[in-house]
């Protein structure tokens, strides 16, 4: 952990920064959902966006993912996973909202 070349990637500053960011990105959706400050539709989008940002924070600050520092095959695996998740979640949202629209609107 204390080896000089990797010290920057594993620094306390980055862990703490990630922790604060993660807390913020958790607090915002909870706040929005509890106070209903925004219309329902916007709240859903905000919660989704915060979740996505949270994933990126975790990958960057806790799992030390970097476009240049991480081995290409690992980036490829993560990209593949991202594509599949996009297909599954995006597809499900598309299918279910399409059905919702046709059934209740």
């Amino acid at each position, binding site marked *: 952990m204390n080896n000089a070349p990797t010290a920057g990637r594993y620094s306390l500053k980055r862990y703490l920064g990630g922790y604060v960011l993660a807390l913020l990105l958790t607090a915002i959706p909870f706040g929005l959902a509890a106070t209903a400050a925004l219309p329902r539709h916007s709240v859903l989008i905000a919660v989704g966006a915060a979740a996505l940002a949270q994933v990126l924070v975790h990958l960057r600050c806790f799992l030390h993912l970097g476009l240049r520092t991480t081995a290409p095959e690992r980036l490829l695996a993560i990209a593949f*996973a991202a594509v599949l998740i996009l*297909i*599954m979640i995006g597809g*499900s949202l598309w*299918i279910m909202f399409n*059905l919702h629209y*046709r059934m209740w609107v």
Partner: protein
Amino acid sequence: MEMRILGRLTAADALPLYSWVAIGGAVVTILGFLAIIGTITWLGKWRYVWTEWLTSLDHKRIGILYVMLALVMLLRGFVDAIMMRAQQAFALNSGGYLPPEHFDQIFSSHGTIMVFFMAMPFLTGLINIIVPQQIGARDVAFPFMNSVSLWLTAAGAGLVLISLVVGRFSTAGWTGYPPYSGAGYNPGVGVDYWIWAIQVSGIGSTLSGINFIVTILKRRAPGMKLMRMPLFCWTTLASSILMVFAFPALTVTTALLALDRIFDMHFFTNTDGGNLMNYINLFWIWGHPEVYILILPAFGIYSGVVSTFAAKRLFGYKSLVYATMAIALLSFTVWLHHFFTMGASAGVNAFFGVATMVIAVPTGVKVFDWLMTLFRGRITFHPSMLWTLGFIVTFTIGGMTGVLLALPPADYLMHNSTFLVAHFHNMLIPGALFGYLAGYMYWFPKAFGFTLDERWGKRAFWCWISGFYLAFMPLYMLGFMGMARRMERYDVAAWQPPLVIAALGAAVILAGIACLVIQLIASIRTRERRRDLTGDPWDGRTLEWLTASPPAPYNFAVLPQVRDIDALHEMKRRGAVYERPERYEDILLPRNTGAGVLIGGFAFVFGFSAVWHIWWAAAAALLALLAAAAARSFCDRTEFRLSASEIQQIEERRLRQLAGEEAL
């Protein structure tokens, strides 16, 4: 509410006293179990079975156990099939011999068993035995996890089997659609048996997938680049990636259904805002990739068989690799074609219809590659080759009906009919099962050291394929005639003749299964003259034929150097095969452990208790399972050292055997 120590388990509910056929099934199950226990006890082989097999972490032993499980479950699943065919052959304007409640259990268990407990263990077993040898490795990456996977799968199979004796199985089909599978319509234990059997074995499958991916990426022999791997390794890699990404969807979906049923939640109940269509959506996000999880390894087997028995290099190796990976990705983009009729807009249906047809393209590429490999080859008609040829013809027919079903307007007419039943059996029997049987006959000498009888293998093939056509072509017809699937009785006289033919087809397949049993028994009895002393009975081209048959625990005393796609063939040509190395080195091998059996056992108790709502036992079993896993992780002595001198002894014996062969 009254708390009972055994949850809702009472003798009156649990015993299968509702029909004579059900009692018969229970008795056969119990007798089969007692027969196995009795035989081992009578032979006094418990110690041998425990130390050499059940606790073994050797990938070959684990693979053999997987295949044995698959073959037993194949028999059970086939009994279900022939019972359904018999029922429908008689049930014109009458109840046949099965009450509806029982018939529904039978088609549900048939599908569940064939997919989860026949096909999955069969392919996992073959992969386990062969892939490490094909890539020149000494074991899988995580030998202990391998054992855990096996015993979780066995625990799931055990839950399905015990449902025949204690309680009832699901009547909701192998897909378990709500609302019918919800607690409101289905308060009994059947659906719970289905859920927990799938949960437990599904986790095992996910672990297997992880294990195979890491093995293939990290354990290849020197020189074995990815683009030099035999095609079976490629299809295993693709299939394992699908397992890792698709199985969590199934686990989550069935877990949500369990929450609906146990805690009265409403993910999939329309009252209180649940949405049952989302169950179907989530289920098929797993379900469609699953089709390719089953079929891709078989494609790999066919590729190996075609190339070996045509004595030619595989035609279009690269195109086969790309086609495999394209299929793996595309398989995630077509799931809606399982529910075109749910009422999505034309745009959604058109997208998934087109995506479905696109999958036919890489599959077509593969068929042409196999044909071109055969073209001008020196073909040996080994039974494995017959399964492959039968597959190519039959699978293409199934592919055509699949493209037909991929048209949403046509699907509106044929969905839920026996046309669909005929279609997917037409894909999975030739596409998956024939492949596994080809692999079984091809690799049997590798696993056991003697070949299987070819005459009985050919008879089995001819019975299976003619039985298949007899059993399923009438179902295509019946679909056009308007017959829905899963009918316990019907009143259309015109349906009966095709149904009788289909039942005859099932009887011919039964003869095929009998041939398989006879083949195995006859081959064991004549094993002394079918010994494979070379380890290479078919003049193989890939590395698994370099090891002894059966292989030493470490597979390769010295890791092979790979220079070509057909690594062994290239070595033979160079005359650099079976060389005596300058010296041997110690090899670390995984030490046996009973922890896998223990974890599987606890998972079984957990599943059984959850089914019957015996919550104290479920909690205890879960805790015990976690404790066993934790205790195992503190174990430092997971490997043992096989010394160079022992290895030298084993290898010298093999080299003498090879020399003796050459003298003949």
